[in-house]
């Protein structure tokens, strides 16, 4: 069974994420890491492969060339190879450009299961999978917290505003999983050592059907309204006392 997992390389949270006022795009020059939410999709792919007894897991991403370093974490976890769509023509892509590029790369692979995470850690719309499924003309199930694969039918359970849905679809299908579906494994030392040697291919816009234009624009940036007298403290062993003092000051106890 061929399983594709779409993962995004995002600026490391510890380095601070910010929008560059000059380009009005997310600053991506610092260190990139795999979006935490996507490690659940990689883990679910690995479990499907293990349950099937064989198969291949392909990590698919669109981003700058340096994103390959971040994809290596997925390879270290056990994915078999990585495909990165990277091209100057794709920089600044929005949903239209990203979905077209990923769909183009996925079409070349023809995977039976295409997995996504629940959202981009750097502020996506938690919806890219649906745009990709539309390009591929495949059924989609999103926010899946329990997944079952029997023969060539997948069944996913997911939470909505009203309770829980159970949805079934024939393969090939696009499935986006939530961060409650599993506990992603840590890469083993062997996995980390082996990751560099696994196949890693870069594709350009021309390989995936050309770059789509963007449908959205950024017109300006502004500071959010001030939040009053917010305070932040580091626990030096007295945090409990400090919280109580604060609650007393605010007349909450």
């Amino acid at each position, binding site marked *: 069974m061929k399983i594709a997992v779409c993962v995004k390389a995002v600026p490391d*949270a*510890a380095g601070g994420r910010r*929008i560059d006022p000059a380009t*009005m795009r997310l600053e991506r020059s610092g260190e990139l890491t795999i979006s935490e939410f996507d490690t659940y999709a990689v883990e679910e792919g690995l479990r499907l492969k293990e349950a099937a007894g064989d198969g291949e897991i392909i990590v698919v991403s669109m981003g700058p060339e340096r994103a390959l370093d971040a994809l290596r974490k997925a390879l270290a976890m056990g994915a078999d190879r990585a495909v990165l769509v990277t091209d100057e023509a794709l920089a600044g892509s929005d*949903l*239209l450009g990203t*979905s077209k590029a990923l769909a183009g790369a996925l079409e070349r692979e023809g995977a039976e299961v295409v997995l996504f995470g629940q959202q981009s850690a750097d*502020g996506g*719309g*938690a*919806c890219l999978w649906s*745009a990709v499924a*539309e390009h591929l*003309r495949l*059924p*989609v*199930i*999103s*926010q899946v*917290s329990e997944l079952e694969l029997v023969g060539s039918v997948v069944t996913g359970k997911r*939470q*909505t*505003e*009203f*309770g*829980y849905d*159970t*949805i*079934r*679809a*024939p393969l090939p*299908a696009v499935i986006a999983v939530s*961060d*409650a579906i599993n506990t992603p494994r840590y890469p083993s030392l062997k996995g980390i050592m082996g990751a560099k040697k696994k196949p890693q291919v870069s594709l350009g816009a021309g390989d995936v059907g050309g770059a789509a*234009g*963007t*449908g*959205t*624009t*950024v*017109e300006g*940036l*502004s*500071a*959010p309204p001030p*939040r009053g007298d*917010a*305070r*932040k403290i*580091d*626990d030096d062993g007295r*945090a*409990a*006392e*400090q919280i109580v003092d*604060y609650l*007393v000051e*605010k007349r*909450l*106890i």
Partner: protein
Amino acid sequence: MSKTLVFLEHHEDAIQKSSLGVLTRAAQLGGDVAGILIGSGVSELGASAGEYGAATVWIANDERLAPPLPQPRVDVLAQVVRDEGYDTVLFAQSVLTADVAAALAVRLEAGLNWDLTDLTAEGIGTRPALADSVYVDVGWSTAVRLAIFRSGTFDATPVGGSAELKEVTVDLEDFSTLAEMVEQAHAVQQGPSIEDADVIVAGGRGLGEPEKFVLAEELAQALGGAVAATRAVVDAGWYPYSAQVGQTGKSVAPKLYVALGISGAIQHKVGMQGSTVIVAINKDPNAPIFEFSDLGVVGDLHAIVPRLTELVRARRG
């Protein structure tokens, strides 16, 4: 003059308040404003949308549209937008609408902006980004503009008026009906409702294991409050769904909200940002929750909470 179509999500016998809120805003912005209801047996519901400013409500009634799945809805919307020449399609954020809007964007080659907290008559949207630390003014470069508004952004305000109901029949794409609803389990209330509590102690995955919810329970008891949870721990089976706060859970606005081991994702924030005072304990100094806490404590909750509970108990006697 702009022609705006508002997607009216419904559940059982009511249109969602959040959809009516978006409709209210669309009517304020002016132009030709219509709503669209897609489902089975939804004709009756359409009339109520007139009160919120829709001049027209499109009705798509079809057995195959009964389950709230996104892909057949894309077929209906694409057809109505094309046939009737709508230039703007607006959605209130939900699990369903995110999937509908994204696929519709591809189908119509239309730009999609999400998580908006406002839209001006000039066509500029406000999108808080990066844990709401920066506000981005966004626009569209396509003929058709799609937008999803953050949950709870606009109040639904009836303005009086009545809508003309127009039925549409649609052809569905083959792939749109491949996904099928097997079961819909509606939420049942377990325990007292958290919506009326003055004090809420909420636990997230940072508690480490289900048994550790006792830390949240004891602190809540000491403070005279209720216990809430994040989706991550509810879906993992640590705590009941009826205690979940956020986009797909409850919206609460207590006087005090104490967040234990919660990262502060937007979908959690939208359910608790109306709290008067927010206190967060999280060991990660970069956790987004600190962007909107009144008192942020960087530290290990396992070390802090037992002592905190003890001190609160002693004070309240």
